[in-house]
């Protein structure tokens, strides 16, 4: 169970979260929605332990395996897609990486290029593959479908839906359609 109790967070003068409480059960799928600046990314960062809350409590199972798609792609750009995925995996499995990348529309040729040379949508798909290949217990995704073209989007959403099976998923999105397609419960903040 992931639990936020009466959490507040400010950045300088700006109060982003004020007394937020939220429980996400194990295996639950939630989509956080709200206007820009509502604190959706802040919630994800608090769960990931990137920074602590000013007050309140964030608790999640100790040593939980996390796979994340950050707001930015955070890929090691001199390295290719395969290496970026390998980095987070317990055991190297090139075939598995190439298969998933292929499912996400990244063919072998693209997978061999340094990720710095890929387009925005391609980078995003590599970041999604990396999060899934971590085989996490908790999948955190901050606007994962941003910049992905309409033709590829359904298969990417399909893969995320498959990957979320049996895992806890916390998704930030502006699209209720995307959230519903993955079977997320929508929480407005």
């Amino acid at each position: 169970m992931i639990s936020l109790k009466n959490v507040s967070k400010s950045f300088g003068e700006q109060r982003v979260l004020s007394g937020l409480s939220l429980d996400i059960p194990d295996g639950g799928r939630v989509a956080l929605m709200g206007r820009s600046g509502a604190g959706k990314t802040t919630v994800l960062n608090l769960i990931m332990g990137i920074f602590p809350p000013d007050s309140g409590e964030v608790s999640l199972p100790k040593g939980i395996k996390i796979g994340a798609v950050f707001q930015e792609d955070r890929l090691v750009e001199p390295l290719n897609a395969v290496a970026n995925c390998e980095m987070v995996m317990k055991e190297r499995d090139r075939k598995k990486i190439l298969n998933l990348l292929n499912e996400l529309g990244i063919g072998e040729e693209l997978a061999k290029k340094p990720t710095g040379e890929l387009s925005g949508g391609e980078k995003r798909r590599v970041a999604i593959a990396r999060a899934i290949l971590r085989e996490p217990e908790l999948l955190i995704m901050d606007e994962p479908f941003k910049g992905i073209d309409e033709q590829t989007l359904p298969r990417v959403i399909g893969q995320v839906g498959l990957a979320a099976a049996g895992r806890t998923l916390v998704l930030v999105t502006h699209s209720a359609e995307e959230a519903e397609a993955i079977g997320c419960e929508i929480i407005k903040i």
Partner: protein
Amino acid sequence: MKASTTFRNKKIIYKILAIVFWLLVWEGVARAAGSELIICSPLVALKRLCELVTTPEFGRAVLFSSVRILGGFFSALFLGIAFAALSSRFAVIKTLLEPITSVIKATPVASFIILAIIWFGSRNLSLFISFLMVFPVIYLNVLEGIERTDRGLVEMARVFGVGRLKTLAYIYFPQVLPFLMSGCSVALGLCWKSGVAAEVIGIPTGSVGEKLYKAKLYFETGDLLAWTAVIILVSVIFERLFMLLLKLIRKKIEGVGR
């Protein structure tokens, strides 16, 4: 023929023409001077170089100086990287090293050479001087590389639970390598120049610097230019080989997972 190949061939031809031009200028100056004591012609220098290469002294002198100068370079490379890593982690080490690197950079190399002769004698002088000149260059370049490494990536690795070794290999190494390469490129030229300058002042027996000094002492301009050519050649060959090795490492890293 591809356009890029034609362009490369043209570039090579222009480079050769530029070298020929300056050799002709050298020949012209030598003729104008009219004295081999002041400046000999390129042909005389080349002839002297060919004679030198066949002497047993030549190999010994080149080996003597190369071992020390490159010893200084590799020690500085190793310690520069190690201290840059430590400085990026511990502010106190960075603060402690700041004045040292600034002083080394600002002090004339001759002052260090004279001090080092007083402290250690002249035999391993070039090792110490080449270390001293290379260390700040490598240290500062690598430190900049580490400090410029994207914090977001380090944060990503922490969230994903990536181990220290993997973080080093996959995140720090690819981002620091270009800084290390640029530092090495500068440092390699510097270590030979400063190392040989130290030998000319300290005159350790059997060194290339000693040969240069003696050539100057006896006005053997042919020897002087021949030994200078030797230093340039050895330095360029080593620089090319070392940079090629670094480029191969970079290619290997960029191709991880292929």
